[in-house]
């Protein structure tokens, strides 16, 4: 996930006309996709259950947002994400702090956490189902584990790479061992910790939705998979739209919350 690169900024300098051009280009792409879609669903003769028309999806979306079932499903999905994130992140930070305090501990745990982060976690989900059942707990725990590794790993890395001059400063100004940990080392490690948390948020949403899609009895992911399974394709598309909006909102909220910390 560290692949997420930053787009070049400096849009302000480019001016209004440039902005128009960008939107025109985007509109063009959307038009091409919508055109191809409409053609395939209409004159192209692709069956409704494979590719519903755009108006059909829009109508389905309109009725879904009024449907309490969907709201309940969304509430469940969000709740699972929140609990999983809180569990995984707090454990990750605690373990990271504990291990990062001592050189030896950091060296012992660092590779273990890296491995936990590298292995494709999907293959463990069936085991979570086996151990914790079809309900929410399997999703929550699976997602919590997913969030745990990058956060713990980044916390340790952050603590390891604290500039010694900050530690020296803390000592010179009379910091106790605890104060050195909390005010100096954790402060200096914060950018790394936060980037771990950001990855953790992304992995939590991914894991919860995945878990619900693979095996569940409720939640938006479940609704999505079910709709497609019973060939209510238009409904499936509509749930997909809702999920994307939801994920976008979660990320927005997370980024807002995280930007309250300095760095």
């Amino acid at each position, binding site marked *: 996930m560290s692949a997420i690169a930053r787009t070049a900024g400096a849009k302000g300098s480019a001016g209004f006309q440039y902005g128009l051009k960008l939107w025109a280009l985007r509109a063009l792409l959307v038009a091409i996709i919508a055109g191809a879609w409409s053609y395939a669903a209409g004159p192209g003769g692709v069956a409704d259950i494979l590719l519903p028309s755009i108006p059909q999806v829009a109508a389905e979306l309109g009725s879904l947002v009024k449907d309490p079932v969907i709201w309940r499903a969304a509430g469940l999905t969000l709740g699972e994400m929140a609990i999983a994130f809180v569990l995984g992140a707090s454990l990750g930070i605690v373990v990271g702090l504990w291990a990062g305090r001592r050189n030896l501990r950091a060296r012992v745990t660092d590779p273990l956490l890296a491995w936990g982060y590298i292995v494709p976690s999907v293959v463990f989900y069936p085991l979570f189902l086996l151990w914790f059942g079809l309900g929410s707990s399997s999703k929550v725990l699976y997602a919590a584990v997913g969030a745990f590794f990058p956060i713990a790993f980044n916390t340790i890395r952050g603590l390891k790479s604290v500039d010694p*001059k*900050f530690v*020296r*400063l*803390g*000592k*010179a*100004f*009379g*910091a*106790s061992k605890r*104060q050195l940990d909390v*005010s*100096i080392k954790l*402060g*200096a490690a*914060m950018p790394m910790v936060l980037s771990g948390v950001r990855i953790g948020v992304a992995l939590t949403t991914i894991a919860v939705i995945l878990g619900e899609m693979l095996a569940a009895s409720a939640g938006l992911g479940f609704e999505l998979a079910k709709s497609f399974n019973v060939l209510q394709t238009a409904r499936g598309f509509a749930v997909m739209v809702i999920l994307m909006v939801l994920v976008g909102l979660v990320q927005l909220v997370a980024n807002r919350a995280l930007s309250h910390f*300095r*760095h």
Partner: protein
Amino acid sequence: MNGKAQSTAYKAEPSAQNSEQGGAALTIKGVGVDYSTAEGTFTAVERVDLDIAAGEFVSIIGPSGCGKSTLLHSIGGLIPPTRGEVEFRGEVIGEPHPDRAAFVFQDYSLLPWKTTLDNVALGLQFKGVSKGERRARARDLLRTVRLEAFANSYPAELSGGMQQRAAVVRALAMDPDILLLDEPFGALDEHSRRQLGVEMAELLTTTGKILILITHSLDEAVFWGDRVVVMGASPGHVKEVMEISAPRPRAVDFMLTDEFVDARRHLLELSRHDLDGEPEPAE
């Protein structure tokens, strides 16, 4: 406390005569520091003896890498000396104690994630002073260096000179007996360092504290110092201690007096000799 401090003898032996009150307050007794490096032990400071009286202003000059910062860190208890010891009022300085000796580091070392205000209040925070009180005190101090408008800015938003002033008042906030200043004006251009120096002078020298200033500027060393300690390199040692007898505080006119000019010339000759004679350790 701006009277001339009782001068101490050059290359003072750690003598009995001035170790009691009225004599040296800070005694540096045969201090040496070794670093362990990849190539074995490296002696950064070989041996330094120095007695410093209360209220005295000592400048330290010497070529880059001769162990000035190392010596200063030892005096403040940050680096335990490998040999010898540092005593303040008869007590051995074993570990850093910001009430006793506060640092202004060569690289400022403001914490980038804290506001200027909280950076200045850092030592008070560690001491357990309540948030309201320490912020009020930090704000007062920032006012004395005209930084009150930047109290809530982060260090990255300050100029080098502003960061330097913040670092100085952060040390002053501890109200220490000893102020250890490591090239506080080092990163500034000639003009601003002179201006800052004049501003800081009042703040620093009217407090009755012991001041130890590392500087690369001979002018600065002579202008401020009751004594100028000249260090030599490889390994670090004291080459000469020079007394500047003119009373402090000194007006800018002091720079035109014979004493200033002579002292400066002498130091210049010493450092030129330094350049010819003693090769600096290769980088």
